[in-house]
């Protein structure tokens, strides 16, 4: 049983890390801010979700259900904040791009 759980942890955490790597490659390679954000947030949310999922059995075994619940709570909070923050960053980037387009006219 423990062995099966350990294998589960290994596989799922590894999958999560893969998403992180993909997201990071996206951050480094994609051409503009919007595309980068798109790659980063999506991949990282799933990546973290998988890491948390993989660690859940270990947490329950080591510290009990409360610790596992805390990890899920962290993931949920991160879902909310990273989603909202990337939206904000996108807004800023979008407005900056617009300003750049309209430059040459009168300064604001």
């Amino acid at each position, binding site marked *: 049983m423990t062995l099966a759980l350990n294998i589960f942890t290994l596989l799922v955490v590894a999958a999560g890390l893969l998403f992180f790597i993909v997201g990071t490659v996206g951050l480094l390679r994609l051409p503009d801010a919007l595309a980068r954000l798109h790659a980063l947030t999506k991949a990282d949310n799933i990546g973290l979700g998988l890491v948390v999922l993989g660690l859940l059995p270990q947490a329950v075994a080591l510290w009990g259900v409360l610790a596992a619940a805390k990890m899920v709570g962290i993931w949920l*909070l991160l879902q*909310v*904040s990273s*989603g*909202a*923050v990337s*939206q*904000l960053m996108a*807004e*800023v980037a979008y*407005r900056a791009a617009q300003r750049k387009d309209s430059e040459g006219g009168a300064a604001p």
Partner: protein
Amino acid sequence: MSLLLDAPLALVAIAVAIRAVAGGDAFARVAAFMAYGLVLGFIWVRLAAPDVALTEIAVGGGITGLVLLQAAGDARFSRERGVGLLYHVCAAILALGVFAALAAVVLLLPEPAPSLAPQVATNLPATDLGNPVTGVLIVFRALDTLLETVVLLVALIGVWSLSPDPLWRGRPAPLWPAPPSGALDFLARVVVPVGVLVGIYLFWAGADVPGGAFQGGAVLAAMALLAIMAGLMPAPALGGRRLRLALLAGPFAFLGVGIAGWFVADAFLDYPDGITKPLIIAVEVAITASIAVALALLVLGPPAGRKA
């Protein structure tokens, strides 16, 4: 095995540190610095100092980064001085010398290491606290912590003193220049209640497990800033009596307990037996409140004219 964890952490820390001082876009430099704070937070965990890790992430990287971001946002940085190659070389040689000397000292520190841990362990029961770091902060070296709250207040007065004369009691400029957006509003409504709870928990738990007034205060300050940014509440008027009382509460509650020590115990800042823990908690409540208000106001900066 530990090197496998430590070496990458150290290398990342050095990389972001170099990025932060290298030239280029101000935002990129500040972002690198914020990453530096985060990495240092992990390193503090590796050094078995979770209280410091929390403080470093909340204050060192977090709120400090926020302040620096503001600077990056509205100050245009021009190259103030061009320094010659020779100067660069001299500086590099000096820095290398500092590194070599410091590294030598660190490697040659005496063995076994001198430590006050046994003394703290012996005296901690007298404080009724479980967290030794809180014990040092609030009891054994209470004077430093008391003065630390005064330092925050004085720094804030210094920041306020930069405002043009007629605005002395006015409101700081809004943190977020754009009209409040849906995403920010949503974020604030979801995160602020949870964050306030976390802040209070951090402070409350600090008596016995990692956490305390500084960490809790920093989280509470961040939540207030988020609420202000999202437009859920206005930036406070700095002349407000309640606000100013909140700023004074921490240092002066601490001072009051300290002075009472002369009369009900044996010395200044000596907590009387029997009510040690309630008194400590009371002092901590007051300083957490003051720290939260002071940190948030330090980020908000001097009062500024509202554009009509």
